[in-house]
């Protein structure tokens, strides 16, 4: 059928910043396409570069927690856990075990909500809105639970250096168990809708493949890596928080399908399996949670004083829904604010995998492939075929010049306002 498609002359240059009514961090794709096929893919992130690390060097450690939380609104707890773990190691603060468990519980609830959110977005990218609505309808349950436990649906503000700020009390357990029951059922339904549907399979099987070898070299993390058969999961590899006491398994697609293909479908499989895994983990954590205090240093003012005296460097990590997040922190004595703070978000590690995934696929696959690593893209720049009529391939230098000019022009007009 290829021959009678109405083809565009080959080699025209397209920029896609998917204008999604759906989510996430703006990213722009630069593509060479022939007809509907992608010859070469490149991307330009940084649309939402807010200079968070730089801001962090101007705030004290407690303020940085909330800044870290707002690196990403999907995992409201990931970055704060990572950051405080680094600080705790530097200041040698021993966190109460109960606090570790609470951190892990919230972390797993977050994984459930994030994976459901992702499933919905992926379905929406496929034009499968009923599945999107279904996933998000189910997700509201965990959102309610999280709000009930933390007081906010997104940025939980649960984490404090040296522990957690709010308890999960015995009275709250039944409500949690009720949700877990709900998700047991919901999982079956979601798995059927997402894994058995013919059209989903048509769109996702063997689309956007990342092989094991590519994955090893490009170092993606989380479900993106695991769907390609890379067994990597901070919760398993690296004993921390409540997870240190559990025996957790790597979730790879072969557990369900018996094979690893590394395609979009496998990424769906991995995430669904992880939802199920998270339900079990929450139950285990609740069961094993010891009593005890919540904070090593209950008074924030005292904590600030102690941190002022701490010095050294450390790395804090957490397995976010999208994979490993890691914060490198360096403190110096006598300073309220960190002297160095490097954030590595999960998508940061996963971006590069887009290139092998996209090349050779079709324009129509861009949204689902882009979404399959669960980045945070939401692009509002619309496809702009570059310049007069779409047939010129611009060189990189030209493109750069053009964009500089354009940005300047617009900014001039902005400042003139």
């Amino acid at each position, binding site marked *: 059928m290829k021959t009678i498609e109405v083809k*565009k002359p080959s080699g025209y240059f397209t920029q896609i910043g998917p204008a999604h009514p759906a989510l996430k961090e703006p990213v722009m794709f630069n593509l060479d396409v022939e007809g509907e096929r992608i010859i070469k893919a490149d991307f330009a992130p940084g649309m939402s570069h807010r200079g968070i690390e730089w801001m962090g060097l101007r705030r004290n450690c407690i303020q940085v927690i909330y800044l870290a939380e707002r690196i990403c609104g999907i995992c409201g707890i990931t970055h704060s856990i990572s950051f405080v773990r680094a600080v705790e190691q530097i200041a040698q603060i021993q966190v109460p075990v109960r606090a570790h468990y609470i951190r892990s519980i919230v972390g797993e609830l977050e994984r459930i909500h994030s994976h459901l959110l992702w499933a919905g977005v992926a379905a929406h990218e496929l*034009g*499968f809105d009923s599945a999107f*609505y279904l996933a998000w309808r189910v997700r509201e349950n965990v959102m309610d639970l999280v709000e009930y436990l933390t007081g906010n649906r997104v940025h939980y503000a649960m984490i404090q250096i040296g522990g957690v700020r709010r308890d999960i009390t015995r009275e709250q357990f039944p409500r949690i168990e009720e949700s877990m029951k709900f998700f047991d059922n919901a999982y079956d339904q979601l798995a059927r809708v997402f894994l058995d549907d013919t059209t989903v399979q048509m769109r996702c099987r063997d689309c956007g493949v990342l092989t094991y070898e590519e994955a090893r070299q490009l170092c993606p993390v989380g479900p993106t890596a695991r769907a390609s058969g890379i067994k990597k999961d901070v919760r398993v590899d690296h004993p921390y928080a409540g997870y240190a006491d559990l025996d957790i398994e790597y979730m790879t697609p072969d557990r369900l399908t018996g094979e690893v293909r590394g395609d979009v479908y496998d990424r769906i499989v991995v995430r669904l399996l992880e939802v199920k895994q998270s339900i079990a983990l929450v139950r285990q954590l609740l069961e094993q949670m010891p009593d005890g205090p919540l904070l090593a240093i209950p008074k924030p003012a005292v904590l600030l004083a102690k941190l002022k005296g701490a010095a050294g460097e450390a790395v804090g990590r957490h397995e976010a829904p999208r994979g490993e997040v890691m914060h490198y922190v360096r403190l110096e004595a006598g300073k309220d604010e960190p002297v160095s703070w490097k954030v590595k978000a999960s998508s940061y590690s996963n971006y590069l995998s887009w290139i092998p995934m996209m090349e050779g696929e079709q324009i129509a696959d861009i949204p689902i492939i882009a979404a399959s690593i669960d980045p945070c893209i939401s692009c509002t720049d619309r496809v702009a075929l570059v310049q007069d009529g779409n047939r010129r391939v611009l060189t990189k230098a030209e493109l750069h010049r053009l964009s500089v000019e354009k940005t300047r022009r617009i900014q001039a007009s902005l400042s003139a306002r």
Partner: protein
Amino acid sequence: MSVNEILLAAGGALIMAFFSMVGGLWFAGIDRVLAARMQARIGPPVRQPFLDIAKLMIKQNVVPANAIPWLFNGAPVVALASAVTILLYIPMAGIPGLPILQGHGDLVLIMYLLILPALAMVAGGLAAGSPYATIGAQREMVTMIAYELPLAATIIAFAWKFASLGIEHPFSLATVAAQPVWTLVGPVGFMGLLLLLVTMLLVVPGELGRIPFDAPEAETEIAGGLLVEYSGRNLALFTLSLAVKTIVVTSLIVGLFFPWNLTDILAVACCATTAAMINLAFFILKLLVVMFFSVTLVRISVARFRINQVVDVYWKILGVLALLGMFLVMADALF
């Protein structure tokens, strides 16, 4: 045609245009409400499409700099006008005087007229000069090619059946209405017709650019595709033309496959006006049922196809099904 006839036809066409737009929007509203309900939502009020059109009419009508204005603005008008025109050829519920252009066109003409609204959208999309719209227009063209095969096979199969029985005007819808095709075939032909029915039900979403065949408009891929640059009145006209087209294709299916009238089935005897009213109501009900199964239910229960999959589905699956159906209808004569 005499002058009188022409005037009558013109008046009839205007009335038809009005009712088809109102009906089309009402259908669109029902479609949205049903879809919402199935997705466990309350959904908009049924009159929402009317409100949308009213809103679009007061909005600014932007013509992009790269567009060729008369083509860009003309395309929506052509789309709507041609969609309405098709209706003038389709008989409805055996109501006397309908279709207005009875005897002037037949199935093949309708099939080709069906191209026009889509073609107007393609022209408008291309005229917009925007890359998304261009991709969308190309995809629309490919989709049109794709569903043409099953559509053509179905129509030819019908005509063949009638012609082989020596019935005059095998391509006329009036012929089908007079003799429901199901009554003319044996079991083998019946199977064939079932296949053709399934095919046609799935040609509908393609004709209307609905999921899973909405690659030309795919919102998450190309942000509305064809229509990306349209706004205001032009967008309203395109929306209307799609609404009218919904009536057109569902009427076509009803006309081909379910031409029975309620009065005939129940053999009620009543005055002509009452009969017409009853039949019209029944006809609308049939349209709604067809729309529910071929548009609403389909569009919310599957994922969108890639454009090459659209072609594969229409040619390799539905095309083969339709040809098989045609073959069975032909083979039926041997038994």
